[in-house]
């Protein structure tokens, strides 16, 4: 799980001094988040819907890419099973820094309704997560709001330093 403070602006300032360069880089970064398609189950359908006609993700600069090398955001949409766990970690490792993870849906957050032998009880056991979306399945609006929140988060980070290692649970 990510070590991040929330609402920095309100509660005692920023973690690092942001320079103009940071701002410019972050501005670009935050407005062109390319997400890795990681539709695992039902939530993946809602993720597709948010990229399709009515919800139209492109207007936020978010484009789904199929290759981890081109992506900086991983939207884990759906149930992660024990059999799949090694692959999600592998793809996460293949993504280039800086990278963020949104865990979409109760299954990805905590295992959700599948409290069984075959389901990983939350992707944060395997990869660090920045944002959790509740819902089964979360509506496309929820995912879009999450991306907007993530944009705000990116704009508050230092752009030049390597990302702080995020910790798991």
């Amino acid at each position, binding site marked *: 799980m990510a070590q991040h403070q929330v609402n920095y602006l309100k509660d005692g300032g920023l973690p690092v001094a942001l320079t103009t360069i940071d701002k410019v880089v972050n501005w670009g970064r935050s407005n062109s988040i390319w997400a890795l398609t990681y*539709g*695992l189950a039902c939530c993946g359908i809602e993720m597709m819907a948010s990229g399709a006609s009515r919800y139209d993700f492109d207007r936020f600069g978010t484009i789904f890419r*199929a290759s981890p090398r081109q992506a900086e955001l991983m939207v884990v949409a759906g*149930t992660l099973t024990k059999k*799949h766990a090694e692959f999600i970690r592998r793809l996460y490792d293949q993504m280039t820094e800086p990278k963020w993870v949104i865990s979409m849906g109760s299954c990805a957050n905590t295992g959700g309704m599948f409290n069984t032998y075959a389901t990983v009880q939350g992707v944060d056991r395997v990869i660090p997560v920045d944002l959790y979306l509740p819902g089964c*399945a979360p509506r496309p609006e929820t995912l879009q709001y999450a991306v907007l929140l993530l944009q705000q988060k990116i704009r508050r980070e230092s752009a030049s330093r390597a990302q702080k290692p995020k910790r798991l649970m």
Partner: protein
Amino acid sequence: MQQANRLRPFFENITFDRADNELILNFGPQHPSAHGQLRLMLHLQQEQITKAYPDIGYLHRGMEKMAENMIYNEFMPTTDRMDYIASSSNNYGFALAVEKLIGLEVPRRAKVIRMMLLETNRLMSHLFWLATTALDIGAMTVFLFAFREREYLMDLIEDYCGARLTHAAVRIGGVPLDLPDNFIADLRKFLDKLPENIKDYEDLLDTNRIWLMRMENVGVISKEMAQSWGCSGVMLRASGVEWDIRKEEPYELYDEVDFNVPVSDKGDNYARYKLYMAEMRESAKILYQVLDMYEGTGPELMAHAPQYISAPKIDIMTQNYSLMQHFVLVTQGMRPPVGEVYVATESPKGELGYYINSQGGAYPYRLKLRAPSFWHTGILSDLLPGHYIPDVVSIIGTTNIVFGEVDR
């Protein structure tokens, strides 16, 4: 924690470089056009596939085990997550199986509403199939068009049950709610526009050179192969077998409505595409008839069987005995008679069957979900050899598999 990464998956033991010039290609489990978590091990001679091993189970969530640990009503929302593109048809299959087990007759209005749900779900599923398959083949426009219509249907379903994707809109013994006020008018409006929309897709695809090249004479399934692999639904009908459970073993009101079962004997991708389009038109036809049926039905929504089904809310609130019954049914669950039942329904993907073995307890002793996609994935191992790499995507597309259903 990041440093300790000791990934050694199994396929790293495979020699990818072999003396006989055979290449082994790993496809998936996270491939954008695999429609979920399908992993294929493909043996290639140049671009041609010589052997294919589908590997499934990446979405195995243990639903059958869950069913053994849940009371019957509790399991209903879990069935949503099987074929999550057309959730209500799963709900319905389960409800029907339990109703057959306890021998219930559902009130007519509930039947009409269920028919509406089933057919709107079929439309949603076929539209989604069209969208994703077209996207895989590169027809982005069709994807956007089809999703536009699908969103409209999802809105309708949301009006009815409050959920877009995971409906749980059917209960054992009936349906929980009556239709909202303008549901019928809205649905009619949609259906009036549907032929136009379908024509749009067909204009874009039917004579499209690329579409034809990737679809025609690709992925030909013979009649024998389809039957031997237990195919059902469009996969079977495209191979020339006229078998639609709605027609042959009618359930609900399918014996009262008039519709055709489109069949083709080509067996290739294009035939399947054509059948999906034709089925959408048939669904619209059924829906028109069902919409007319709604008017003449009584207000009953749930079957009356105090031993198994809770009384209507108004009774629970006002009558002591109904309240007690409800309490027992919710906390302990209904106890169907001892026996077993296998009920097949025609879901948008094919024959969706529920086998329930009840030992008279509140929990099913064994519940087997017979999901059509499981065999439609299995057939890939026989179907793919001989084809070329680009055909893999279009074949997976037209088999219309959903991994919630394959792996359960």
